[in-house]
């Protein structure tokens, strides 16, 4: 990938939360229209529509796979439709798919759409699905594993191996909530949190309390991606993809390629590669858009980003330096903890927020003068990690 070859020119998003009456199709249709309008292009410019599959299945997926959206949108020059999914890493695998389509020259404008409606499923269905989502149904699920338990084990090991404290983990929730309070579409944007309140909430899976566990949400978002050449023509402030770096470690957490589980968070080398490929360093970043889904994992990722010594990112967050107005803004939409967890959409939501920030369209959450940011995502049992550096200019 040549640096700055592709660009984002518009985004769309609907409110996240519990909206059982709003179908997946309605979400997808609405976010698509918002993104097209925000990009300022004609719908007939769209040459490909890529969707993130709805997790836990849905007739929406069948429609998506068979290309309902271009017809519904009236994208009369659409040539390619596809669905791409890799769990929590879907935002990355989708973007790489889009880059391939753009590089092929078949079209210069691609629409990406995500929609999820968890509220259609019963408690038991959700419980069963999320017991197996991060685990292995033969080797882990018979032992009563859950996604919360998985995140709890990772957090427990991180706390045991580093100077980080459970109070610092709680402070991540407080910071993420502060960001979510600035987001009109966030599920949790009305009540502030305190460390005491987070620590005092019901114990779910030691050391995680209920306010340290994300909640599932209905929601969706979309974006329009194009070539840098076209972006400069049609958009006053495009956001360029400057670089990325990826790794896959395992599917079962027991197969993680690390000596100690707390090393799952040592992704410093990978982040450095992304920085280097962009010709930038951590000091150049105005925002750190971290996808973690659980606050302990936020610390593990932040440890890797070159702004703090490994094991001390909790001190940085607890000091308020990652809050709105602080020098190291993180996860400016509040991420899964603040927006709500939309399945494959958490990473897409964070990516859309990244684009908004660099376009200067982030509203009350806007980080003034933001030029560059690093964004990450990963899926399953912390199986993979992808860093992307975005910028609203291409570094010389």
């Amino acid at each position, binding site marked *: 990938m040549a640096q700055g070859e592709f660009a984002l020119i518009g985004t769309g998003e609907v409110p996240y939360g519990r909206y059982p009456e709003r179908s997946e199709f309605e979400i997808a249709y609405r976010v698509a229209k918002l993104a097209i309008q925000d990009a300022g292009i004609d719908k007939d410019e769209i040459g490909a529509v890529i969707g993130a599959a709805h997790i836990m299945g849905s007739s929406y997926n069948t429609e998506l796979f068979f290309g309902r959206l271009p017809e519904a949108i009236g994208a009369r020059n659409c040539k390619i439709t596809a669905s791409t999914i890799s769990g929590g890493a879907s935002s990355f695998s989708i973007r790489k798919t889009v880059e391939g389509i753009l590089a092929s020259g078949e079209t210069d404008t691609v629409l990406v759409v995500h929609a999820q409606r968890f509220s259609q499923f019963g408690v038991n269905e959700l419980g069963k699905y999320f017991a197996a989502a991060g685990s292995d149904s*033969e080797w882990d699920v*018979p032992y*009563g594993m859950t996604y919360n338990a998985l995140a709890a*084990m990772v957090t*427990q*090991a991180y706390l045991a*191996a580093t100077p980080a404290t459970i109070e610092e983990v709680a402070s991540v929730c407080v910071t993420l909530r502060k960001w979510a309070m600035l987001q009109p579409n966030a599920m949790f944007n009305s009540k502030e949190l305190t460390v005491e309140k987070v620590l005092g909430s*019901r*114990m779910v899976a030691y050391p995680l309390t209920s306010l340290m566990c994300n909640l599932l949400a209905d929601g969706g978002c979309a974006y329009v991606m194009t070539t840098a050449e076209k972006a400069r023509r049609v958009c006053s402030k495009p956001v360029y993809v400057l670089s990325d770096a990826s790794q896959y470690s395992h599917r079962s957490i027991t197969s993680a390629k690390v000596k*100690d589980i707390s090393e799952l968070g040592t992704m410093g080398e990978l982040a450095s590669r992304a920085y280097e490929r962009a010709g930038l360093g951590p000091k150049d970043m105005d925002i750190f858009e971290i996808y973690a889904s659980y606050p302990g994992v936020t610390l593990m990722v932040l440890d890797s980003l070159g702004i703090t010594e490994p094991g001390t990112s909790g001190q940085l967050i607890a000091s308020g330096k990652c809050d709105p107005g602080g020098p190291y803004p993180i996860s400016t939409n509040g991420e899964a903890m603040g927006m709500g967890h939309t399945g494959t959409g958490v990473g897409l939501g964070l990516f859309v927020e990244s684009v908004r920030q660099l376009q200067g369209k982030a509203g009350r959450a806007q980080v003034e003068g933001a030029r560059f940011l690093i964004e990450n995502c990963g899926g399953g049992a912390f199986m993979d990690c992808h860093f992307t550096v975005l910028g609203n200019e291409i570094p010389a």
Partner: protein
Amino acid sequence: MQQNISEIQQMLGLSDEDVAKPLPEPTPWSQPFWDAAREHRLVLRRCNTCGAYQHPPYPSCEACYEEDFSWVDAAGRASLWAYTVNHFAVPFPFLADLPYVTAIVELAEGVRMISNIVECDHDSLRNGMELEVVFDDVSDEFTLPKWKPVGR
């Protein structure tokens, strides 16, 4: 608690099948593990070509890609790698077990497994502590290897 659970089951309209504990669904390349567990033996698959242990097993050896294996007896010793104590929001079939410990254990042979730590004081769990295998006959067909602190 038990009565509470049947009330919740009724409230949610769940069948007995819905609330049955999930059991392993063995593959052709994992069946010997479960057969041995039923006899209260812990076995691991070792590659005859390169000697690597592998768990969970797949059709070929992760290290050398060959498909020639032996199942060998494990020492039945492990150390605690990471753990959690589950208190709330677990799948329905595990409600009656709360609070229970799920953990990652690292066996003496170097492979890791998800399991439960049983017969232990939850407050005394420490990463790195030594564990020994115990066997839990969860159904007529399946026995789950679990772990307890050594000497308990």
